[in-house]
């Protein structure tokens, strides 16, 4: 849809905004996990959210996907307000995610996991299934075919019929991505996708994320691996103690003194 050739690989400033956070505050009792965060993510970009542990990154994901309702502020997706919306409706609207600690349906097969995601846009209900209506069969077939396609896309189609929990760790991360892609998101949120991966796996993950973007999807990721972040991101935002510290291209952010201080604070003082 988006991501026309000339947009790829750089200047996205002209692309329309896909996800906007306006002055989002998320407080739990006295703890403010997000303090007046403003963010705009544009169509077709790979956007990374970085920051130390406890900076509010996953909280931001939870606010965007409807797990939390922000204390104040607005979240808009493709111009439509999604804060306070039911979680499955946010997903249907085009936002899907993976989890920092893998949360697959462990005892279902890989293919079934992906089919659950694909079902988000299916409509067969109890009556259609019981009476064997044509759309039921159409959707079953679609789910299977699309599911295998997505498993192929993320590179684990040979494990389609294996139980999710029996997959190796890296494959489980890929399966989570495939399941999220099943919901056909415009915006894909990846929560530390490279955690626990070896360099070769990281390399192919990096390619996978690019291919997802080239498919016309926007990617928002949380990642601690700076090499990966700096390599594939179009833009980076830095969160620290719930505050947006800096935002810009990877090289801009790397040079930002505030970021250097936040990340290297101790060493900077010492020198």
């Amino acid at each position, binding site marked *: 849809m988006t991501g026309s050739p000339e947009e790829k690989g750089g200047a996205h400033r002209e692309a329309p905004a896909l996800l906007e956070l306006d002055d989002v505050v998320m407080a739990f009792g006295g703890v403010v996990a997000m303090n007046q965060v403003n963010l705009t993510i544009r169509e077709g970009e790979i956007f990374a959210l970085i920051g130390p542990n406890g900076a509010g990154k*996953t*909280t931001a994901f*939870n606010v965007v*996907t409807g*797990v939390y309702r922000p204390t104040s502020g607005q979240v808009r997706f493709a111009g439509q307000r999604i804060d306070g919306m*039911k*979680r*499955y409706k946010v*997903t*249907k609207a085009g936002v*899907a*995610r993976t*989890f*920092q*600690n893998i*949360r*697959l*349906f*462990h*005892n*279902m*097969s890989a*293919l*079934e996991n992906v*089919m*659950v*995601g694909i*079902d*988000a*846009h*299916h409509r*067969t*209900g*109890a009556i*259609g*299934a*019981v009476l*064997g209506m044509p759309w*039921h*069969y159409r*959707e*079953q077939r679609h*789910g*299977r075919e699309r599911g295998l396609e997505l498993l192929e896309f993320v590179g684990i189609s040979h494990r*389609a*019929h*294996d*139980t999710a*929990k*029996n997959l190796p760790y890296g494959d489980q991360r890929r399966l989570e991505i495939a*399941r*999220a892609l*099943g*919901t056909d998101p415009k915006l894909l949120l990846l929560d530390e996708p490279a955690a626990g991966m070896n360099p070769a796996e990281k390399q192919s993950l990096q390619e996978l994320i690019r291919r997802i973007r080239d498919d016309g999807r926007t990617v928002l990721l949380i990642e601690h691996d700076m090499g990966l972040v700096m390599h594939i991101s179009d833009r980076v935002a830095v969160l620290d103690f719930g505050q947006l510290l800096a935002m810009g291209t990877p090289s801009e952010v790397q040079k930002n003194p505030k970021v250097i201080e936040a990340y290297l604070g101790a060493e900077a003082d010492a020198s």
Partner: protein
Amino acid sequence: MKGNDVTNNDNGTATGNGNGNGVKRSSNPLSGSMDRMRDWWAGAPQWQRWGVYVALIVGALILPAPWIGAFMSPDNDWTTVLFFPIGVYMLMAIGLNVVVGMAGLLDLGFVAFYAIGAYSLAYFGTEYGWNFWATLVIGVAITAVSGVILGAPTLRLRGDYLAIVTLGFGEIVRITANNTDEIGGARGITNVPHPPDMFGQKFLFDPAPYYYLMVATIVLAIIFSRRLEISRVGRSWAAIREDEDAAELMGVPTFKFKLLAFAVGAIIGGLAGTVWAGQANFVAPNSFPFILSATILVAVVLGGSGNLPGVMVGAFLIAWLPERFREVQDYRILFFGAVLVLLMALRPEGLLPSRRRRAELAEGTGGMGSMGAEVAGPTSDPDMEVSK
């Protein structure tokens, strides 16, 4: 035939993992041979499957034969026993399996729907003289609505709270029937109409036609619940059972599907009640005690929650053993109680588990997470995980 096309494919998905990579095989010989049978079934050609279906149905039809009854039920009329408790328990277990086995919701008041089904026939049949089939339709509608009425306010609750609330609902229905004179109060309703003649069969006091009616109802219920299981609906239930939050975030309207599970379970339970009342001719509040809910739960759990053949075997055993061995009749609830405790400690997945469910119950997912105060156990708090 289309229906089988899908069954086929689903079996491919669900059991394809049996060849080496699947759920760890239990060393138990029973589940070992079960797995072999399942693998055979998954690979069996269409005609062999139909052969099994036909054989099962023919078996069910000749089951009331006296020579079988002589062994199975020397003390009581075998056909009567086949209808009640065996048939009724099996049908109810199929219904409760949708709620507990497929959607992972613990319902301790399932008897309420059975009661509502039975009372629907009794009330509309005696007060308005409606025919059995008309009330069957109305009864199904009423039980479905009552399932929704129970579910709508309660399905957002934690799993164990839900269990207690459903128990309360079962008691509310029984006590209300007991206290309401319009439906006979504690004395209940007599002269409940029998079904009209069908295929030249008279539905009076001979249990045989009721038994065949029950077989037909059970076959229908099996087809229904099996078709649901392999559809988007069943996948959503399985996802909810495994990780409700993740399911919702993958676009599953969890509340709607949980409500649906309650309604479907209620309908099947209600059907059991209506068919039973058509034969029994008489309904009263004390036919619907909590212990009946617990008994059906034992059947589901014993057989292998989530696995239809297992659940039916469980229901058959629970219904038949006390009838066959009259000397243990008095001790059956004592025995059920002990079975539940032992089963949960030794084999929580039941006698014939579904592959998936077996793993879930053993490792502390399966709807509710693991118990607290056990550090070794897996993480049990989904809310915590989302926010990590």
